[in-house]
């Protein structure tokens, strides 16, 4: 089953205030999206971050204490929990809300890389448009948003990639097959970072590394996401029929500006999941995966080697080559998108070894490094100059007139998978072959009758009892098309539900 999506927490700041209240700023930013008053729509029932994919429920998370402290402080504010969250469900089926003081945009579920990249870019558009509206009310360009993962003071925020996978794959097999791949994926998916930091402690300038998140990885497997961060998160919230599916929730990834990096990150991960499902993943086992993530991130020459459990050593490109070769052997010819990923994956590994400059505009860490080196030569400054961390930050600014990546894009120095028309389309409708498209259609057609939304269901008002569209098993594209047709044609959600549920009943 092919289905994936990306959640991105944005950094937010105001340059006209000495003290920024992140709760208020993030909340106001999300609400600036609205042209009508806020209505609570998100349904939190069934969300439990303590459920662990290894088969138990964690009694507590490392972040619970800090969360409780924030909750105590936030309790004195004149807002409820739901006010602060300000959850919005958008006409493209995406979710936009305030998550842990960061505006977060979660794409609708996608089946193709082209849709995913367009939806991710639509997210950048949506958050920047909200900032423009907020700035308009503030009377200046004060609010700035950053699609990155660090504040250079030891605070990280995430960009999570999610995949629907069959529950039939045992979790230990999933973990074993994925760990070496995730440790090494940063070689093309890393966003690049100036300096080294650690969780909530310090910042050491003077070094450029592949990844923004590597410094914050502390363990191999864990249900935690804010402290004690794992290479492979074990949260078990399938947002689908739990007997059939699990949602793989990866928190190790960087937020990418390059469309190519986003497509390759998600595309290669999907192929590795296919390999694991078929029992064809390479038999790699690293001795110390957490140390390896950091070690590989800090070697931009890509020469470092890490130890395997069998005693031999292996480089980041050799790890990736083993996954690539297994995928080429097993999956070539599966479909057009798979062949595209295989071709680009192989080419990228070759170019990383031989001609990395040609990956400018395609791989973020190489693009950022090239920009900074050019600037350093121009200004005659060294890697320890604090200006470089500021330029690193500004690379991720999503403002079209300020962001450095945006400037490169305007000059035609970036590789594009989307045209502007694709992004405009993604702003107003979700993918036509996933339940994300159904969610978006319901928000557009029946805005006043949607009572609440969760990824796998929509509740409608009307009649004596709320009525629910269950989508926990709505994944086959043909079934999605039929569901969309019913909700497109019906005069009310009740009519649509009667027809849709009647069809399902007659088939069962």
């Amino acid at each position: 089953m092919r289905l994936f999506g990306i959640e991105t927490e944005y950094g937010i700041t105001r340059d006209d205030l000495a003290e920024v209240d992140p709760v208020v700023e993030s909340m106001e930013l999300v609400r600036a999206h609205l042209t009508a008053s806020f209505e609570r729509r998100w349904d939190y029932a069934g969300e439990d971050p303590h459920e662990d994919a290894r088969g138990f429920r964690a009694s507590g998370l490392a972040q619970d204490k800090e969360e409780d402290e924030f909750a105590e402080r936030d309790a004195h504010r004149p807002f409820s929990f739901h006010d602060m969250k300000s959850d919005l469900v958008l006409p493209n089926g995406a979710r936009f809300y305030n998550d842990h003081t960061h505006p977060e945009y979660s794409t609708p579920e996608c089946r193709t890389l082209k849709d995913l990249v367009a939806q991710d870019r639509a997210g950048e558009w949506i958050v920047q448009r909200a900032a423009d509206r907020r700035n308009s009310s503030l009377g200046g360009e004060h609010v700035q948003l950053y699609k990155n993962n660090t504040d250079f003071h030891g605070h990280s925020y995430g960009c999570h990639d999610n995949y629907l996978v069959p529950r039939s794959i045992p979790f230990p097999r999933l973990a074993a097959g994925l760990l070496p791949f995730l440790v090494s994926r940063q070689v093309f998916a890393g966003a690049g970072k100036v300096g080294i930091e650690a969780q909530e402690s310090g910042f050491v300038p003077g070094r450029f590394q592949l990844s923004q998140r590597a410094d914050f990885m502390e363990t191999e497997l864990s249900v935690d996401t804010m402290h004690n961060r794992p290479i492979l998160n074990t949260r078990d919230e399938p947002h689908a029929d739990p007997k059939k599916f699990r949602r793989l929730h990866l928190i190790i990834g960087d937020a990418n500006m390059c469309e190519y990096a986003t497509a390759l990150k998600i595309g290669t991960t999907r192929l590795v999941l296919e390999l694991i499902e078929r029992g064809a993943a390479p038999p790699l086992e690293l001795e110390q995966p957490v140390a390896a993530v950091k070690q590989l991130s800090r070697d931009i020459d890509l020469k470092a080697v890490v130890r395997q459990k069998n005693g031999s050593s292996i480089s980041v490109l050799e790890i990736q080559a083993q996954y690539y070769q297994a995928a080429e052997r097993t999956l070539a010819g599966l479909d057009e998108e798979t062949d595209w990923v295989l071709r680009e994956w192989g080419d990228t590994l070759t170019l990383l070894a031989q001609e990395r400059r040609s990956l400018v505009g395609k791989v973020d860490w190489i693009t950022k490094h090239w920009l900074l080196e050019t600037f350093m030569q121009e200004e005659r400054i060294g890697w320890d100059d604090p200006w470089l961390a500021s330029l690193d930050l500004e690379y991720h600014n999503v403002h079209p007139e300020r962001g450095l990546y945006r400037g490169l894009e305007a000059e035609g120095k970036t590789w594009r998978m989307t045209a502007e028309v694709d992004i405009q389309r993604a702003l107003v409708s979700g993918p036509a072959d996933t339940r994300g498209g159904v969610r978006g259609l319901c928000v557009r057609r029946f805005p006043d009758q949607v009572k609440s939304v969760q990824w796998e269901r929509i509740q409608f008002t009307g009649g004596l009892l709320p009525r629910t569209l269950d989508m926990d098993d709505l994944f086959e594209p043909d079934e999605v098309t039929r569901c969309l047709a019913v909700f497109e044609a019906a005069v009310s959600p009740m009519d649509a539900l009667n027809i849709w549920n009647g069809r399902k009943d007659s088939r069962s």
Partner: protein
Amino acid sequence: MTHSTMPERREAPGDPMPKPGPTEEGGGPRRPETGSPEKDNLLKRMKKVDPKQAERYRQRTGE
């Protein structure tokens, strides 16, 4: 939805960038021009960045 407050996005100058997707036959990435950033545009934008911006930038830990 109105987009009136969003500045118009500029398309890449010169020849239109190919928009290759994985499903488009013959599609493939165009190698970007990587001689050096345009001095009059991008470097100017970089020089405008406040050197102390990252020092002031503080966020709460997220996920």
